[in-house]
Structures are given as C-alpha cells and as structure tokens.
C-alpha cells in the first residue's frame, strides 16, 4: 500500500481547494490535493464574482442571512482572500485586476455588460467601451459566439471575421500561441482599416500567455484590445484553473488527479487517511489535517437521492431546506432555487457541526446557506472560505 503522510490533504480541486492548498504549500506545509476531475471554474468566465452586482461588491454584506458562510469569514476575510488571490495570480501569466471596493464591468457575448469584481487583465478593456467605437473580431465557423448579437445591442460597433483554419475556441486559442499565426492575424487586422477605438475578441487569445498576445496585438495595431468571455468550453476559466494548479505545484504541492476519494479512515475523532478509488490496489493518502472542498451538486460533493441529500466523501450530515416537495424545482440553474441553501453547516472554525471530527475543515460551495447564484458570490466565496480554512488549518498544525 502506498502510504505517504502529508501535513494536510485537501479534497476537491476547485477554486476553494486550490486556494487553500496553494496557501498552505506556500507556508511550507506538505500539502496534497486530491480531485476526481476538473472543477466548475473551467466552465466559468474566469472573473471572480464576490457579492453584490451593484457598484460596491460588499454593499449587500449586511443583508446576508446569519448562517451565510461570508458571515464566518467577515468583510476582512473576503478582502484578505481577494488580495491573496491577486498576489498568487500575479506570479502567473494571467494577472488579475480589481479590488473588493469597486466592481468592474465586462462585455458579454450577447452585447450586455456584466458587473464582477476581479477580472483577468485581458478583459479590463471592456470598461468605457460604451464611450467610443468598438470593433468586434470573430472567426469563420466559430460556434457559440455571434458578433451580431453585440453589434445589434451595442451602438457604435462593427465586426469582421477571420479565417483561423479551425472553428473551436480551444483550437483558435492554441493557434494564437503560434508566432506565425499571430503575425498573419496582425497583418490581416492592419489591412482592415478599422475606425479608431477598441478591438474586442472572443476569449481565444492563447491559453498560456494571453496577456502577452493581447499586448502584442495592441502595440502593433495601436488600439486597445480586450476579450469577451464565451460559453463553455471557456478558455478564461481553463486558464484560471491551470494557473492556480501550476501555482500549487510550483509551491511543492502534490497532485492526485482523476480519481474520487472512495473511502476514509478515522480513529476516534480524527481523520487519518483517505483512499482513492483507483483501478488497481487502492492508493492511500495520509494526513494530519483534512480540508473538504468537493463543491456542490454540479461537482459531486453533494448528491441528491429521492429521499435524501448525501455528502459523498465523509457522509457528513447535510442541511436540506425542508422535504423534497419544497425544493424540487425543474430548473436547477435559477437564482433563489431553494436547494441552493443545501450543504454542510459549520462552526466558526469551519468544522462541520453535528459531527465530532476535529481535524476536518470545510470550505467552498459545499457550505450550507451560500446561495451562490442568488448572492452572486461564486468564486469569491470559494476563495474567501478556502483561505479561512487554510489559516485555521495552519493554526491547528502548528
């Protein structure tokens, strides 16, 4: 049996688990991250929603219900989380802009504006594009992105199509990493004679080095360039995920990817090890402390059956808002859906209440009462609670 003891084992490789493990690995703890698969982050816009969609991200803080996870981390915890996130991202090829004091605007693929808090540098140019001309560039055959949606909604815009020789966002993004392709593309724009203003593209400007590619285009054509997030497969989401994962390995964290935790070993009130459901002999990962960040229903951290909702790793008690008839709505992705409240209830140190496990801390969208869609707090909540769990773990271990 392969037995390796870590200081801390984080289960779930989403925004929350990645933040927690990157923080702890950075502090020199022997950290392992286990994940069954890639997280919801890969489907997201890559922008971090913190809370209210108005001008100030935290203006809705006081209106949050008493059990909301943000109440446990406080305004300062949210601020610290966002700061650490930006610090980590600044060490990667996709730095972020923004603060928790003011929301920013990004342009959506349907020509509307969306407010969000922390934004990758490639999307910041959307701000102020209402004031001048914006030229949208899309690609022949690219599905899921229609520039005419934008030009019909947004005044003072126009568009052109480029033939990239491949029609998927991933394929085009890959080609942008190729010098020859980039040169040909720039030469083509230069020949377009676009009116002065900004140039907007779907988010396909490379996978590894988008900022570099954006700046190169911008420098050569003399206009500000920015990206518009697209439907999944979402390149900015993929970039964010890969950059955070890379930040973790750069800090010495160990990855176990692609297998779910199959079983857990506890002695008394301590978790001692978890076992991965590998095809052969089960792999056992030992730790002194554990962080549970397996996400909500979408990622499989919670699983709804006809009569109950289960937590899939430790079988922790799950808070459910009343009997099934109260929460069984047809459309899962609606803000205010009652099942959004479901999850694990925790105490002030993020230990699950109604469980006597002492070295287990819970963070991210698996927490009860988060109501992520209603409160616009997806990545923000994952980041802030991830950092909080990591800090508590740090204290627990030392």
């Amino acid at each position, binding site marked *: *049996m*392969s*037995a*390796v*003891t870590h200081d801390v084992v984080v289960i779930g490789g989403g925004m929350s688990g990645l933040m927690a493990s990157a923080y702890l690995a950075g502090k020199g703890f022997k950290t*392992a991250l286990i994940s*069954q*698969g*890639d*997280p919801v982050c*890969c*489907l997201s816009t890559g922008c971090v929603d913190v809370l209210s969609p108005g001008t100030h991200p935290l203006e809705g803080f006081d209106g949050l219900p008493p059990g909301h996870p943000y109440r446990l981390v406080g305004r300062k915890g949210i601020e610290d989380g966002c700061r650490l996130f930006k610090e980590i991202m600044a060490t990667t090829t996709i730095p972020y802009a923004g603060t928790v004091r003011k929301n920013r605007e990004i342009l959506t693929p349907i020509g509307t504006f969306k407010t969000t808090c922390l934004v990758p540098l490639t999307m910041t140019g959307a701000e102020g594009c209402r004031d001048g001309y914006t030229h949208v560039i899309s690609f022949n055959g690219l599905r899921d992105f229609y520039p005419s949606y934008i030009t019909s909604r947004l005044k003072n815009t126009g568009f052109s199509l480029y033939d990239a*020789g*491949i*029609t*998927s966002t*991933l*394929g085009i993004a*890959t080609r942008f*990493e190729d010098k020859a392709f980039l040169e040909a593309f720039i030469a083509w724009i230069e020949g377009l004679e676009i009116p002065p203003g900004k140039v907007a593209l779907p988010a396909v400007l490379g996978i*590894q080095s988008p900022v570099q590619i954006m700046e190169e285009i911008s420098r050569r054509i003399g206009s500000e360039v920015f990206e518009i997030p697209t439907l*999944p*497969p*979402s390149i900015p989401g*993929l970039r964010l995920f*890969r950059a955070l994962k*890379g930040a973790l*390995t*750069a800090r*010495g964290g*160990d*990855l*176990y*990817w*692609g*297998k*779910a935790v199959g079983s857990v070993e506890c002695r008394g009130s301590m978790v001692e090890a978890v076992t*991965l459901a*590998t*095809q*052969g*002999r089960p*792999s056992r*990962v030992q730790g002194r402390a554990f962080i549970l960040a397996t996400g909500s229903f*979408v*990622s*499989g951290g919670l699983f709804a059956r006809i009569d109950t909702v289960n937590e899939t790793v430790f079988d922790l008690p799950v808070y459910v808002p009343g009997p099934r008839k109260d929460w069984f709505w047809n459309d899962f992705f609606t803000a205010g859906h009652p099942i959004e409240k479901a999850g694990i209830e925790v105490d002030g140190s993020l230990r699950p209440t109604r469980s006597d496990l002492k070295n287990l801390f819970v963070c991210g969208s698996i927490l009860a009462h988060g109501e992520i869609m209603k409160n616009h707090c997806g990545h923000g909540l994952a980041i802030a609670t991830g950092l909080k769990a990591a800090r508590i773990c740090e204290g627990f271990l030392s």
Partner: protein
Amino acid sequence: MTFEHCVRCTICVENCPVYKVEPLFPGPKQSGPDAQRFRLDGEKSVDQWVKYCCQCRRCEVACPYGVQVAEIILKAQLKYGEEHLSPFSSHLFANAYHLEAIGSTLAPLFNRVAALSLTKKAMSLFGISGELDLPAFRFLNLERGRRRKGRGRKVVFFYGCHLNFNRPDIGTGIRDLLVSMGCRVVMPPQTCCGLPALGNGDLDMARKYANKNASVLTSYIDRGFDVVYACTSCGLSLVQDYPGILDVEGGRKIAENTYNVHEYILSLIQQGSVKIPLGILERKIAYHIPCHLRALGIGYPATKLFKLIDGLQVSVLEDHCCGMAGTYGFKKRNQNTAARLGEIASGAIRGLGVDAVVADCGACRMQLEHFTGLPALDPSEIIREALQNSPEHRGKTEKGIVRWWRGIKDARHAARTLPAWPRR
C-alpha cells in the same frame, strides 16, 4: 460511468490535445458519449474520425462525473477497426514487440538502415511518418542481460518493450536501484503489455500478449512477488486494461499487486528501515508528466523522491500531451498533430531554463528530446545520479562502460551498506 452519466459540460473537450490541433476530430464529448447514443450493435460504424483519438485518456482524468470517455472511444475504434481494412502501419505497430525484437537482434544494421533517407521514403509508402527518427535499438537487451537477485522483498520487474530493446541501460539501472534497497529482483520472460495492439485496433493481438504476461505474472504473485513497472503506459495497461477491456484471467490480481517503481521505492522508504543515501544534485529539470501516469491516478510518486534530493530544482508540467502517444505519432496520418503537440509541450519547457527533461515514458522522452534539443531522462536516472553524488561516491566521473560497471558496483556497495529489508 457510462455515456448516460455525461452532463455535456465540455470539461473533457478542454483537455483533449488532439481536438486542440486537428480540425477533423470533433473532440471527446462528441466522439464519446454524444455519438455513443447513436451507435448500434448491428450497424456499421460511420464515425471514421474516432481513429484520430490518441488514447491519452486526458478526457477521462478531467471528467468530474467519472464518465469513461476514452474507453467509449476505444471501443468505437476497435469496432471501426474490425469492420474496415486497417492500414498496413496499424498491423505493423500492433505487432510492435516483434518488430522491435528484430530491430534489436539486428541492431547495428537496423539502426543504420532506418536512418537512410531511402528507408524513410519507403516507410512513408506504408503510412509511417518519416519526420521522426525511429528509436535506436540495442543488441544487449534486457531479455539477454543477466538477472540479478538480492535477498529482501521479492519483485518481478516488468520492464516493457522500450527499455528492453532501446534503453536496457535504464532497465538495468532500475534493477540495481531496487537491489540496492534490498529487493530480490527477477525479470522473467515477458512480452509486450498489449497497449500498442489495442491502440492500433487489434483486440485479439492485445489479448494474446496480455494472456502470455498474465500467466507469468500471476505465477510470481502467487509466490509472494510484487510486480513493478517503470513505463507508465505498460503500467496503465497492467492495472487498467488487464482487468478491464482485455479481461484477462488473473487481471484483477495483477492490478492489485502492481506498483509504479517510484511508488514502490517510496513505500520501502516510508515503511521502515530502508534509507537511500541521496547526495546533492545541482540540476534544474522539467518533469513532464506522461498522460498515462496521470491516468493511473496514483499521483506523481517520482516528485516525492525528487524532493528528497538537495539542490534539485523541479518544474512539474502536467498539462501537455507530447503528441507521440506510443505509436500514434509514427503514423503519417498523425504526423502533423504529433508535431504540433510536441512543439506545444516543448514550448512550455523551453522557457524554464532547465538542463534536462525528465519523463517516465520512452515515447515522451524521444519526442521531447527531438523538439527541445535537451537530454531526456528517466526519473530513475536522476535518482541514480543523486545516489552517486552521496558522500561515498562523490567525485567519480567515469564515462561509458566504466561508468556502467561503476554504477553496478556502487549499487552493490549500497546494497551491502543498507540495512537489509526484512523477509516476508
């Protein structure tokens, strides 16, 4: 999980290396679960694009719902292969073991002939890419080499075709490493794991190979041996395909008793008295994680050994498929895809300022050496180098055969100085 569990989230698509560069391949979601809804047993396949999938299994590792995307596609590939005449190159590569055995027997001649431009043109007629050099063969392969027996834990070393025919030096190195840790290492007759045959659409051939190996391996397992592999594709085949799609007798037993070599060494260190005297090694390396090591889901055990070596700086790269995928990249049909992916994987390495690329898979090493121009090493070579730098061995810089002999002598010495592993 079957195709019915797919929620069409597209996460697998984001991870497919072939989809990134090959416009003719619709990606894992469409060729896997989506198309599976329309595939009927009695009907002939119409989805010729499934052959573009290189079976890296990245889609499967990424899927948050555990859908066996790559296996769905593999089955479609096998079905397609059965119904259609496959190109000559597929038959050749399905039989890679015998091809390599000939190459090794006639090593000096074969290596020269393979390098001729006329040979490359001829290969091209048979659907083999002339872009890449075929691997050089060694006459003194592991099959012909001597077996080495220590006294402690009993290990069957499944060395695989690449080490056997092309890099027996790495194979003997690993054997000596295990012996130095007190293991009794045997290398019984063995053949190709079967993965190349599977990848070239020949299930029967794959089963034939697998059954041959299975009877040998299970007989050793029954006598208290552990199976240890170094090549991560062989490992994946033993652990995943033997009990899975190949369904060989004893497959489950093999899967349960098979270890990655670094995982094994770690467990020896972890469990008790064995210490390896690793010296300082001032190197900066890029560790390219082979797709099939990812697919094994055992983490990256060699990285944990690297952390025990002072002075060693390691960048772990796990987001790229090198494009070679066993014999995939050698086919003319795939040569552009393989080259583009090789370029991308190498691009990620070049910027790091490393002095070598390290990978557990022979195919990755060939490909990355070709594209980065850096030496490509097996993780065990780094560990052996660190062992040689330990205080007892510092300052010895022999070359060639002297160094090879020295290596063995050192390992013997290390074996003597180590506390013996308790017998089972």
